[in-house]
């Protein structure tokens, strides 16, 4: 058996180019299959662990998914804001333990600006019970103070004391810049592997101050600007927020409160339970997952067929080799095993290579994907589904190998020692 294995390996090595190409095509299909699956599960776990201990997310009346995406994952924008009085109403509701308000809409060089208050630093939780901490500086207190996520600090080389100018809107190159009201970085947040890393946090007052001299969504005309130095907290009056998170006192309160918010008469609001909305997201993505898996499956079939063709076409050239092996005393069954071994080795090596590449890429692309698309990917272990994929690839490889092996077996019987 060891002799056969050695022969199989050396024989494959001698046909380096075809072996390599076949191996590559199988690895590619495994990479696709596993990649799709890992990204799906990685994204699920990443999304799920981005927010914890929050019972409800409240925003203006609208779809639950957009609300979840813009408030937590910084994907998309709020269609409408909530009046501050409505926020105050629920903040002071007896069933509510704490709230975190978010005001969104500005950006800085592609990174989102989130206006919030101290509750964010106090109560925001991710990965079950991790809170937001600082690697440098402290939380923003003044009107023009800002705290930046670790990714922002790293990418833009900012440190405590850096002056930053925020842009109106979310475009990378914004037409309107709040150039006359620069902010100062006072704190840098620790890495969280969530969208928090690529956001800039200011106070609700800061957000209000930036727009104090704006009228109906347009910047002030020259000469009408109010300089930053003249703005005081007491003059600022917070008018609205984009969304807020709620922690209720009990599970029962959550459902009652959700109902109460959704039927609130003063203002049309939507309250969602984050875990349920995530579930909605997965069932939507399920179709894409199935489609991608089907495509990867087709690629796998092509890869295995390529292997079959490569092994089969080599058969004629190898008749003499088989005759020599027969002369040395290998029986036809061993010849059969030799050929099946080759196909098994190729598919196993291809599967291993594909698997390794999938995890390698996942590891490499994790942080860029999170930064650019806001999709958090967790490194996840080998799931039973991946295990099934790998087994199918190797078993299918060996089964397909039986076709050229049978042919070689028959050739061996017919040719005997006579394949000159």
């Amino acid at each position, binding site marked *: 058996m060891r002799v056969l294995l050695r022969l199989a390996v050396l024989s494959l090595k001698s046909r380096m180019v075809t072996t390599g190409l076949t191996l590559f095509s199988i690895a590619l299909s495994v990479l696709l299959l596993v990649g799709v699956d890992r990204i799906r599960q990685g994204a699920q776990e990443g999304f799920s662990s981005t927010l914890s201990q929050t019972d409800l997310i409240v925003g203006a009346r609208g779809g639950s998914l957009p609300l979840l995406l813009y408030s937590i994952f910084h994907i998309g924008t709020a269609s409408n804001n909530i009046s501050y009085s409505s926020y105050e109403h629920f903040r002071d509701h007896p069933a509510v333990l704490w709230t975190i308000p978010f005001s969104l809409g500005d950006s800085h060089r592609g990174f989102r600006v989130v206006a919030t208050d101290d509750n964010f630093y106090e109560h925001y939780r991710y990965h079950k019970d991790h809170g937001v901490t600082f690697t440098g500086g402290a939380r923003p207190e003044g009107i023009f103070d800002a705290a930046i996520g670790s990714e922002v600090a790293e990418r833009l080389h900012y440190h405590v004391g850096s002056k930053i100018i925020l842009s109106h809107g979310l475009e990378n190159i914004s037409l309107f810049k709040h150039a006359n009201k620069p902010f100062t970085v006072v704190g840098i947040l620790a890495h969280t592997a969530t969208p928090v890393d690529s956001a800039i946090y200011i106070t609700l007052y800061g957000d209000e101050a930036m727009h104090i001299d704006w009228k109906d969504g347009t910047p002030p005309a020259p000469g009408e600007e109010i300089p930053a130095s003249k703005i005081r907290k007491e003059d600022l009056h917070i008018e609205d927020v984009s969304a807020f998170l709620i922690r209720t006192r009990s599970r029962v309160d959550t459902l009652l409160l959700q109902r109460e918010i959704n039927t609130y008469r003063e203002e049309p609001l939507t309250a969602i339970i984050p875990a349920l909305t995530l579930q909605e997201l997965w069932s939507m993505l399920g179709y894409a997952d199935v489609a991608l898996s089907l495509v990867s499956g087709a690629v796998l079939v092509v890869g295995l067929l390529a292997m079959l063709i490569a092994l089969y076409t080599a058969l004629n050239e190898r008749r003499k080799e088989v005759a*020599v092996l*027969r002369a040395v*005393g290998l029986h036809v069954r061993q010849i059969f095993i030799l050929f099946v071994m080759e196909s098994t080795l190729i598919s196993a090596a291809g599967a291993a290579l594909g698997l390794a590449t999938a995890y390698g890429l996942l590891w490499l692309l994790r942080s860029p994907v999170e930064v650019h698309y806001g999709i958090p990917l967790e490194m996840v272990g080998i799931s039973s589904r991946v295990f099934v994929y790998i087994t199918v690839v190797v078993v299918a490889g060996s089964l397909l190998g039986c076709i050229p092996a049978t042919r070689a077996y028959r050739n061996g019987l017919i040719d005997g020692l006579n394949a000159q």
Partner: protein
Amino acid sequence: MGMFPTISTATPSSLTRSNNLPAIHLQNVLFAYERKTPLLWIEELLIDDGTRVFLHGPSGSGKTTLLGLIAGVLRADKGSVKVFGKDLSRLSATAQDRHRGAEIGYIFQSFNLIPYLSVRDNIALPCQVHARRMKRITASTLDAEVARIAERLDLNGCLHRPVTKLSRGQQQRVAIARAVIGAPRLMIADEPTSSLDRNRQEGFLRLLIEVCNEARATLIFVSHDDAMMSCFERHISMAEINRVHS
């Protein structure tokens, strides 16, 4: 008819191994690829252990078929084919293959070598496949045995070269080395010189016979070139032993 003896020409040889069994004994052997057209019919063929046999005959006379029967890749339809006392027709296919691997060294006309193995690995292969041949090596390790045989056949310079880099003559000498390692009792050479040029043929033949004598092996040498006949103790003409005439 015939200037050559056809049946039971036992040439006594000083190099015969100790047992008295004939190397090959065929009785009433009938073989046909297709039922109604038998290809080979041999009433009796006896080859003594240690004999050097020259087997000749035109192509189509059944030489290759006879070799196939002796080597145990073909199975006689009738009669018995005994090689060192073992009746091959009673052995299973696997047992035949094992018997061949352990007792027979086979040299082809050309393309004797596995292209993806080094010269060393090609020579060592029979011992790796068959424990019985491994047991019979005289050196202490397989590597030493390969080196010893390579030295004998003037191949020690190219042990680690890929076989594709060898000349024809060298390739055929590697084939001898592979056939002779682990001292099989029977060596079959199927027109091994036909791919060599004239002046190489003689050297090759002399070397082959010497090596066989040293290993005390029976040699069946197939050729259509009668010029080499004189080097052999016994000559068998296919036309005379095969009752089927084409």
